[in-house]
């Protein structure tokens, strides 16, 4: 599928599929790599999502019809694109306690021990389908349905940055303090979003993450390294 439509007078939306799938995600990733490589005049930036890429462009440099032709040319090169291997980043998480106040709720709902919830949550590899919502937030796929839990009935007014939560069949990490209704099961000391860093956003769509359970003490040690700027997240190659 490669369906182009106008999106306002500065946007072009290209749809690659109808549903969330790894295949669609890979096509989108390849297409974004081509955009990055070709630096097409007038293309300002692009926003990849579950099933589409939206391109933001300057009509003074390239008009709608001309950009469509350029995009169709890129499409012809898609099949020949080789994606670099995806990476898995390890995200240390201190589960439960005051950092994960809803861990017990999730466990009770499914008649599990808290430790079973932790092992289920931390044994999967999660594909980063897209980034969005707030700076550095990753939309992840791959959580076990066994721990799927509805959102809180009444959202909290402030959830600390780094909080790891479950909302329905999704799991995610809050990059900055914000209000929210997710079931919070733990917290990571690492920063997903650091506006003053040269690379302000830690995660990239198309890569994977794995949650690594850590203790309160380990949390404090890593947090200090993060604050001092000496912490380097552990990354390994992803094998299908």
């Amino acid at each position: 599928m490669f369906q182009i439509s106008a999106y306002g007078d500065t946007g072009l939306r290209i749809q690659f599929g109808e549903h969330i799938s790894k295949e669609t995600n890979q096509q989108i990733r390849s297409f974004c790599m081509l955009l990055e490589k070709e630096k097409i005049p007038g293309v300002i930036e692009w926003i990849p999502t579950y099933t589409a890429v939206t391109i933001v462009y300057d009509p003074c440099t390239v008009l709608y019809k001309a950009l469509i032709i350029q995009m169709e040319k890129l499409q012809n090169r898609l099949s020949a694109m080789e994606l670099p291997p995806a990476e898995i980043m390890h995200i240390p998480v201190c589960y439960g306690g005051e950092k994960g106040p809803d861990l017990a709720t999730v466990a009770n709902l499914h008649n599990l021990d808290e430790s079973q919830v932790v092992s289920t949550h931390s044994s999967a590899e999660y594909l980063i389908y897209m980034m969005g919502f707030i700076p550095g937030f990753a939309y992840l796929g791959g959580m076990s349905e066994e721990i799927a839990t509805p959102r809180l009935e009444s959202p909290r007014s402030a959830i600390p940055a780094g909080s790891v939560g479950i909302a329905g069949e999704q799991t995610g990490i809050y990059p900055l303090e914000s209000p929210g209704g997710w079931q919070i099961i733990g917290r990571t000391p690492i920063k997903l979003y650091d506006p003053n860093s040269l690379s302000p956003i830690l995660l990239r769509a198309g890569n994977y993450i794995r949650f690594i359970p850590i203790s309160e003490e380990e949390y404090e040690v890593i947090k200090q390294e993060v604050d001092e700027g000496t912490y380097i997240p552990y990354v390994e190659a992803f094998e299908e």
Partner: protein
Amino acid sequence: MSNTIIEVVKPGLATSVQDLGRTGFQQYGVVVAGAMDSFALQVGNILVGNPRGAAGLEIVIMGPELRILEDTVIAICGADLSPKLNGERIPGWKSIVVRKGQIITFGQPQDGAYAYIAVAGGIETPVVMGSRSTYTKAAIGGFKGRYLQKGDHLASRPLNISLGSVTGRGLSQEFIPNYKNAEKIRVITGPDQSAFEKSSIEQLLSSSYKVSAQSDRMGYRLEGPELNHVDGADILSDAVLAGTIQVPANGQPIILLADRQTTGGYTRIATVISIDLPFVAQKFTGSELQFEAVQVEDAQMLYVERERLLKKISLGAGQVD
């Protein structure tokens, strides 16, 4: 090097430092922010001799009280919020000299909601991800990532030109927008037009919608005839742009503006064309909007014309950028 030039005596309702926004990071979820009325900010910058994308002060409805700490040149563009210098009414869309010790105040809003003070040299704050725009929800950009407060001191880049050389410039009357009498807001339908009943698209284009009180830099919620979905209001999270009109399950449209999130989960019935965005932003709570559909090609011709106008004003002001 920068000079402290403005002291905030009273902060006003929500005064912030804005430029043309933080582009290039939307794929990582970073919100664009920037001036709600980018035309007004750009004209202001041109009039005081700045590059069009320099940072200025955005003022909404209830303006601040500012003390000038050094002689400089300013231009106030956008909404007419009754600006005064030492109690004397000053004109909008015109560059004027302000002297050390003088006080800028604002009064009753006359036309529009968002005004911009462009200052010669531009407001200097740290650049975060390529922009000085304030995005308060993530506490980034602008002055400490927040709206201005009493006692804040703002700096500008020192001038290497004489004040006189950028004073007394104005935008011709014919180009000064009249926000109150703004005609219809033009939109391009889609990308989710098929998610709506045909009659609802007609409804959007033939009815009047009122700007509700739940409106801010993120977007304006509208109230009016309900728009009906064929099969639910939710979509897989997808990109949203400036001017995108989302319709959640309650059938009431929301126009997304400067502080919109990068992605959203509601069906998008249409997107406001770029040159009409300032007219949306300048609407007050309770005022009415009507929409009219245009083709992309027509909207882009208008866009290119607008760009030509800005270039022409720059040239007229002796600037090339």
